[in-house]
């Protein structure tokens, strides 16, 4: 049985290694971060696009702010638009050197009629702008394949099909144009199929006319292509006459965008004719999109204003305009430019994202509209009576209600806000909104118990930083965690005495009690408060049973030095011991294991840094740059917390403390069987600790030398051929 399990383990491990994740990035590491309330996009997109805006975040991406504006102004989104916005565009795999499936299908189809084998068709054309354009898209290959099959089924002769493919090969030979690095074909092109005589089959003549126009299009002969497509449009017998007017417009659009901007008006005129023709309804949606595209390329200032107007006013069919407007806003942003703000929507988005407060307030006073009420409330730092009265009038059930309520309560005096927040929290709501209301309630806590009651929050998503950032929703989090606000208070504003109470507080789930108990014990050691360390040890042991043997040894130590070594021994063997609590899920590695990203023991505390560091953006809506405080703390408690923080900041870095203790113990008790291992672990701490201080190298080096000189044949010495300085270089 054991053998079978072993074989299965080996098979799965090997498979795991061989298969590998499909999208492994070589950048990084991008470590998971817990998201309690999303900053950039709603966690539940379908809900948001249905108009359930929850607490609107000013830094949401543009598309969500557009949707919010429409709901706040009463227009909303119909089901088709909601669905369109939820549909993520797929990017075809144009890049493979073996071609996309559509290209491959064409390459195979042409071989069936005797055409010579081709590996691929270069589909990108190099431009004078040091870049490429996609000249032949997948639709072209799909259409060629389908037409060839259709002509074969219709009884065309083998010779006709062969000639048809030869002409089509000429069409696609224009896709790339001359490539700078490749041997140049002779001739260089363009490659335009010859017209067929009137004696050829009618279908062959019609197809050839289309092939000629297509070849001209890909060979940048846009005027000729447009004229030829119009001729095809006029030929009612051609199977291509329906699509031809649309393609004539496309030829002029391509001319306008890559060759001569002066062709744009003619291209727009062609598109207007397509849109006016009821027989061309199959191409209307695409023509509308092209019209917006052309306008965006040629007259960006006019286009962005038009898109904003469309997004803000059109009742239906706005998803395309919303996406185009989003792209244009992103482009302005990429160019470090402010987009025009003439339209109310544009002004609202810019103000909601960046303020300032007086503009938001002035606009609200001018318009008295819900979008501007939200903007004004978002930036309000005091309870403007007029604004608060307007906020109180917003009906429950309005898409603005949760946002307005959140800010109204934020601006109220704590005694007034508290019962109202309690009532809000009794309601059902998504976790992302609840987390912010919990934070708001915690901010006005009356006492320590009250604060701890509202500190735990449920994760709503996991985010990964870096270039590939995205958020993966968490539907039912296994545990609740601290967010930045609670972690800051526990780490910087709570004296040991209060932390000891927190470790036993039943409002905290066991995982958070453990975090606090661990912090209390390590702090007690660093602050030389043996009484506190002894008192918390049984609590910590019950929450983390793997620490119990070490804690029992600590409690049983007969004297101060033995106790100091017992504490160091515990920490040397448990790199997850540190004196702060985690914001979010925190350290993923179990306490006894080394974290591969050096989240081991504690980092040097920089109190100035900690005070300056801003919290996550949703919490900043509440705290607005100020540090979270336990407002109810007494002056004595604050002074005590400050004093302890100063002592912790002055305490040695983890590897210094641990190496010093290991060396002291080994020198005093050379025969203790733990001595060599303690030295080894101290050297290891020098390598993997979060950071060191000015004495780290000196103490780690001493531990290393003592290990190698006094215990040269020990397993510990064998496993320690080098020591590493704080710069991570081996010695």
């Amino acid at each position, binding site marked *: 049985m054991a053998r079978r399990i072993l074989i299965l383990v080996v098979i799965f491990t090997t498979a795991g290694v061989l298969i590998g994740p499909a999208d492994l990035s*070589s950048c990084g590491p991008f470590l998971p971060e817990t998201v309690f309330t999303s900053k950039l996009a709603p966690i539940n997109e379908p809900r948001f696009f249905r108009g359930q805006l929850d607490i609107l975040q000013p830094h949401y991406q543009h598309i969500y702010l557009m949707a919010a504006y429409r709901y706040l102004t009463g227009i909303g989104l119909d089901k088709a638009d909601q669905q369109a916005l939820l549909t993520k565009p797929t990017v075809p795999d144009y890049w*493979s*050197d073996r071609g996309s499936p559509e290209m491959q299908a064409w390459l195979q189809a042409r071989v069936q009629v005797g055409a010579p084998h081709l590996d691929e068709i270069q589909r990108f054309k190099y431009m004078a*702008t*040091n870049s490429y354009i996609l000249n032949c898209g997948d639709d072209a290959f799909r259409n060629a394949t389908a037409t060839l099959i259709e002509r074969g089924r219709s009884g065309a002769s083998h010779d006709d099909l062969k000639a048809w493919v030869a002409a089509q090969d000429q069409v696609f030979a224009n896709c790339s144009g001359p490539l700078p*690095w490749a041997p140049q074909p002779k001739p260089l092109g363009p490659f335009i199929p010859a017209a067929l005589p009137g004696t050829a089959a009618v279908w062959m003549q019609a197809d050839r006319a289309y092939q000629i126009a297509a070849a001209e299009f890909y060979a940048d002969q846009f005027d000729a292509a447009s004229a030829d497509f119009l001729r095809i449009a006029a030929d009612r017998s051609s199977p291509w006459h329906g699509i031809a007017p649309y393609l004539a417009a496309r030829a002029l659009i391509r001319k306008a965008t890559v060759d001569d901007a002066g062709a744009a008006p003619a291209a727009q005129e062609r598109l207007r004719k397509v849109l006016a023709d009821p027989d061309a309804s199959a191409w209307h949606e695409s023509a509308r999109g092209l019209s917006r595209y052309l306008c965006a390329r040629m007259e960006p200032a006019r286009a962005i204003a038009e898109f904003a107007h469309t997004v803000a006013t059109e009742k239906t069919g706005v998803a395309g305009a919303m996406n185009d407007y989003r792209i244009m806003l992103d*482009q302005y942003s990429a*160019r*470090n430019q402010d987009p025009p703000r003439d339209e109310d929507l544009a002004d609202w988005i810019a103000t909601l994202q960046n303020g300032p407060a007086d503009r938001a307030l002035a606009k609200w006073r001018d318009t008295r509209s819900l979008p501007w009420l939200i903007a004004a409330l978002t930036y309000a730092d005091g309870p403007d009576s007029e604004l608060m009265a307007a906020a109180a009038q917003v009906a429950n059930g309005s898409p603005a209600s949760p946002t307005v309520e959140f800010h109204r309560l934020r601006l109220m005096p704590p005694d007034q806000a508290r019962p109202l927040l309690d009532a809000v929290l009794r309601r059902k709501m998504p976790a992302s909104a609840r987390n912010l209301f919990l934070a708001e309630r915690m901010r006005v806590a009356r006492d320590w118990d009250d604060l701890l009651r509202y500190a735990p929050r449920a994760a709503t998503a996991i985010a990964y930083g870096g270039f590939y950032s995205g958020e993966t929703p968490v539907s039912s989090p296994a545990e609740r965690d601290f967010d930045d606000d609670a972690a800051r208070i526990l780490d910087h504003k709570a004296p040991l005495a209060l932390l000891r109470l927190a470790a036993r507080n039943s409002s905290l789930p066991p995982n958070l009690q453990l975090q606090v108990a661990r912090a209390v014990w390590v702090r007690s050691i660093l602050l030389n408060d043996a009484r506190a360390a002894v008192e918390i040890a049984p609590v910590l042991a019950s929450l983390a049973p793997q620490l119990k043997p070490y804690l029992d040894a600590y409690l049983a130590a007969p004297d101060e030095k033995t106790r100091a070594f017992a504490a160091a021994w515990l920490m040397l063997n448990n790199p997850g011991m540190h004196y702060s609590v985690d914001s979010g899920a925190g350290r993923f590695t179990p306490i006894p294991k080394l974290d591969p990203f050096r989240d081991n023991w504690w980092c040097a505390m920089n109190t100035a840094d900690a005070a300056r560091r801003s919290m996550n953006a949703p919490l900043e809506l509440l705290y607005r740059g100020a540090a979270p405080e336990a407002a109810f703390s007494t002056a004595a408690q604050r002074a005590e917390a400050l004093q302890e923080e100063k002592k912790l900041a002055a305490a040695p870095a983890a590897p210094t403390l641990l190496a010093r203790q290991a060396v002291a113990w080994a020198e005093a008790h050379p025969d203790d069987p733990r001595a060599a291992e303690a030295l080894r672990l101290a050297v290891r701490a020098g390598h993997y600790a979060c950071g060191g201080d000015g004495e780290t190298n000196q103490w780690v080096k001493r531990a290393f030398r003592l290990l190698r000189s006094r215990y040269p044949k020990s397993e510990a010495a064998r496993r320690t051929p080098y020591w590493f300085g704080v710069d991570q*270089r081996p010695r």
Partner: protein
Amino acid sequence: MRPHCTVALIPLLLLTACAHRPDPLPGFPRVFVWAWERPEDLRWLDARSVGVAFLARTVCPREDGVAVRPRLQPLLIPPNTVLMAVVRVESGGHAAGADIPRTARAIADAAALPHVRALQVDFDAVASERAFYRALLEDVRRRLPAQTPLSITALASWCEADGWMDALPVAEAVPMLFRMGPDHYSPGSDFRGDLCRSSVGISTDELPSRIPSGRRVYVFDPRAWSPDHVQAVLRKVGQWQGAF
């Protein structure tokens, strides 16, 4: 100066000369802006003092071939700009089994783009991909004209404790002093390994307080380049060089 003093100074002068590695890209500008995949209009650039290292393509070695994503965004530059084509390699974890000759050809082809005078490869190879990367660079080097310098970007850790880049067939390795994650750069310190001692890569939003002297500087801007940003970088580079 008396003759015996002059004679005594000769070994010292020789030592000083030996201490500085010759410029691996002689005649190239001392500052390059990285033009990544976004529309960039740099026609205002002073081409005499600043070169352009532009993302020319992204090459993804796969088990069944190579995917090549060419640059799709326009890059406008003044005449006579010194152009360096940058090829980003995205392995997706498949480098070990990838086809080295096809990947090398896809990379080396970028050096044939018009007006390109040097090639830079940007690949954050993980430890298990280093053998592949070494073989790939050797193949790329063979395919390039002799006068075309081959540059690579390097994680700072490659230039520190790690000697895996020794004897790579490249003119320089550019240590990237931004988005470093757990790595860090201590201003004033220098890198090990000759390859890492002729240039640095920095970002406008994470400018270090100092860099080692005499380095060619490659600069990334997370947003589109503007004259103000380039001027600010040039001022900073001037301060750095003046500080040493």
